[in-house]
């Protein structure tokens, strides 16, 4: 839409904000998808993500009703319970142990996961929350620099493979050193992996989407090769199982809630929360973040301002990959402890949910945190282990999750549709009628 008429402002006082901000600069080529997406984001604020989720759940509910005849509301209720979110509603009089002491104090929720299924389910949700936050941040950071990092899977895998390798070797290393080494090395592998795509974009202009997709497959088949029977990192004691060695005790992340022999919540949860803060600070309080955002919004103006666009493409991709690599490393030393060739293909796909997390969270730290929680709850609540099969078959429900996830991505991509559906922006209508005459 290159329309000089609508581009000029209709008043002497500058244009009303909703008119001026999203008009593309006049006289130029069409803005890229990323630019238009960034503009759409600004226009919608918090309302659109909420509507998006609402609409996705609504459509999901209709599908549940039509295809299975189940009651959508009780189905969602079961997913809610399966995710352990009912834990917060079950208020009572319980005790909690203060960290680093043996003292117990009163607490309104039951933290004992043997007495409370909700507590156990919630732990599972929070375990899923960690990689979703980190892969969401990975996608978000690249987006803020105007790039679409679709290679979270490869970077996650790189981090996971590095972590399992370091974690299963070097026994006898002091625990703190071993864990840190495994996690940091994993993040660096992720940074390196995405950095390749960033470097290619910066130097020869290879589109990052193509490069990261290719790198995903390289990572996947490297992983399959490493852990297949006879592969270099295949298990030393079980020659007929295509799995890595186990991470040694000293290299495992400490557990702070739950039974370590089941799957319990590890301190990676706090790493994820810290990553959200780091993400916000980096973007908003450092010169690096200033450069990244300037390049993301307008590379030409950034160059004119003396910023090296190529350097920022590379750095932003590397940082993005570090988040994804961190996710893989933390999952490995936090609860998975080993990788088999199946995991290489399947588990790493959590990184794709990270795209939905970032899109729904609008690439903002707080938004990514909240949408990671939503998706973690969905993934956990619909898993075979957690969903009450009498209400809805979990095999179907996990598909429901994928469906809702897809709808969210679709709707976020179609912000305009959501906006016009709810009649929030008259401007949108004008644009459509304009488009119709061109």
């Amino acid at each position, binding site marked *: 839409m290159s329309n000089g008429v609508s581009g000029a*402002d209709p008043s002497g*006082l500058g*244009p009303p904000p*909703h008119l001026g*901000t999203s008009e593309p600069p*006049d006289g130029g080529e069409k803005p890229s998808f990323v630019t238009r997406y960034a503009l759409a984001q600004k226009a919608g604020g918090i309302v659109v993500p909420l509507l998006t989720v609402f609409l996705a759940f609504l459509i999901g509910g209709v599908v549940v009703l039509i295809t299975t005849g189940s009651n959508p509301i009780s189905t969602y209720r079961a997913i809610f319970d399966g995710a352990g979110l009912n834990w917060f509603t079950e208020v009572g009089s319980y005790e909690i142990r203060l960290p680093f002491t043996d003292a117990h104090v009163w607490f309104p929720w039951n933290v004992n996961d043997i007495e409370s299924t909700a507590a156990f389910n919630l732990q599972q949700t929070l375990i899923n929350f960690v990689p979703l936050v980190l892969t969401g941040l990975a996608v978000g950071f690249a987006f803020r620099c105007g790039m679409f990092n679709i290679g979270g899977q490869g970077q996650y895998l790189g981090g996971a493979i590095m972590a399992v390798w370091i974690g299963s070797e070097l026994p006898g290393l002091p625990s703190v050193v071993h864990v840190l080494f495994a996690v940091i090395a994993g993040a660096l592998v992720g940074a390196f992996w995405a950095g390749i795509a960033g470097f290619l974009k910066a130097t020869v202009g290879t589109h990052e989407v193509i490069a990261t997709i290719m790198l995903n497959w390289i990572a996947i088949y490297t992983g399959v090769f490493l852990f297949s029977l006879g592969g270099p990192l295949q298990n030393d004691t079980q020659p007929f199982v295509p799995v890595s060695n186990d991470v040694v005790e000293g290299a495992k992340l400490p557990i702070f809630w739950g039974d370590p022999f089941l799957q319990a919540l590890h301190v990676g949860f706090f790493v994820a929360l810290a990553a959200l803060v780091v993400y916000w600070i980096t973007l908003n309080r450092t010169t690096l973040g200033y450069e990244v955002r300037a390049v993301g919004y307008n590379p030409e103006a*950034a160059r*004119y301002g003396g910023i090296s666009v190529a350097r920022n493409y590379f750095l932003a991709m590397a940082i993005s990959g570090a988040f994804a690599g961190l996710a893989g490393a933390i999952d490995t030393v936090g609860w998975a402890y080993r990788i088999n060739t199946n995991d290489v293909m399947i588990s790493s796909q959590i990184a794709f949910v990270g795209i939905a997390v970032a899109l729904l969270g609008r690439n903002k730290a707080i938004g990514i945190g909240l949408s990671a929680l939503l998706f973690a709850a969905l993934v956990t609540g619909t898993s075979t282990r957690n969903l009450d099969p009498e209400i809805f078959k979990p095999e179907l429900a996990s598909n429901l999750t994928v469906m809702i996830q897809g709808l969210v991505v679709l709707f976020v991509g179609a912000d305009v549709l959501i906006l016009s559906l709810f009649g929030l922006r008259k401007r949108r209508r004008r644009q459509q009628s304009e488009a119709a*005459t061109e």
Partner: protein
Amino acid sequence: MDERPVLELRGITKRFPGIVANDGVDFDLRKGEVHALLGENGAGKSTLMNVLYGLYRPDEGEILINGKPAELGSPKASIENGVGMVHQHFMLIPVMTVAENIVLATEPVHNGVLLDYSVAEKRVQEISTRFGLAVDPRAYVRDITVGQQQRVEILKALYRGADILVLDEPTAVLTPQEAQELFAIIKSLTDQGKSIIFISHKLNEVAEIADRITVLRRGKKIETLPAAGATEEGLARLMVGREVLLRVDKGVSTPADPLLQVEGLTVVDDRGITKVKDVSFEVRGGEIVGIAGVDGNGQTELIDAITGLRKVNEGRIQVGDEDVTDEGCRDCLDAGLGHIPEDRQHRGLVLDFSLAENIALHDYDHPPASRLGWLYPKRLTEKAAKLIDEFDVRGGGPQTAAAGLSGGNQQKVILAREIDRNPKVLIAAQPTRGLDVGAIEFVHRRLVEERDEGRAILLVSLELEEILSLSDRILVIFEGEIVGEYPPTVTEEELGVAMTGGGRKAAA
């Protein structure tokens, strides 16, 4: 001239949240006349025309076409009512021919399904001969000049049966010669009964082409007056609401040492075409050197090379005592260059950044804006608040996104940023393009002030009037070469000849 109005807008009011863009505007258009709509950016011209074109629904008021009330709910309805619009930015498909573009969406068909482009070409030829709009229907749009593309847009409107043509800032993209050709076309259109609404903020051309002029200011109609007898000063006063200085008030220059020296500069563009050939000149402190030329004669490449945005193939560039040949952009800035880029929205500003962030664009990476990579947003805000105040930027504060400002205020932000860095050399490329009278006055005054401060100012402009009124010396660039140097007393005609290559031999 027929006195019956073909179009009447009565009491049009259009409100946007917080703003009344049109406030009870009356407007009428008689058959066969050119009625100019004059106003500053943001005065409500565009809103009014969007109402006419069916893009906005007015909150109050009515539209009469040929005396009958018309319901213009969509552009389609407007077209059916004979309203045609030629936008400032053309909406043509470069890879299609002229005829294909014109018949788009109303393609002639034979046997029900097959497109019949020979019929299309014939019809286009008919219309174009009838109104004197010479253009080859078989040429591809990407191959024809901007002036011809505009004719295609006009033909498109006529093809769809327009009797009322709205031309939005039609001369903004044209050379002086092309503008004259356009005026001839407009005459021929009105002679054959078409009526034209001519939107502009250029006073001289409005006085030349229009029969009547309606002035809008802040959404209100100020006056409708006959063009005969209207003076530029009078129109400017109506537009801005106060006395405006149309001529630049400047004293004699006192040139000092050369601050910008360019020697034997040659620049080859990405496609291997030599855009700047062996160019040498200097700009002294305290003088404004203007570079005149037709668009696309190497001005952009010259500026990009000087400011470090483009590789230098041969030659030397010196700022002050420092050789900045092939230094990066950052080093050129640090050597004392200030640069007001020709495209303020694509290059000069990050539109999604706040004003504070935009003002920090060159200085964010060192104290006081930041230290060791840590940014101090509060300091950015403080500095922005100071400059916004000093340069009288209106329409927002330090946290407003740059996209929310009008063009004039955006340019003030850039000006503030570049001047505040206290540069030795200030390069101003098209500094007033698309600005209204008040903003132009501000930019010109400020440039002269900076000259008097002792800065060396290189002004590149396509507007001859601007070059003539600001420059102390004028260089003419043609096909990448400096083909002449003239004093500011030179006439527009002389410059015009030199700009099109006529002066190459006679170069001083």
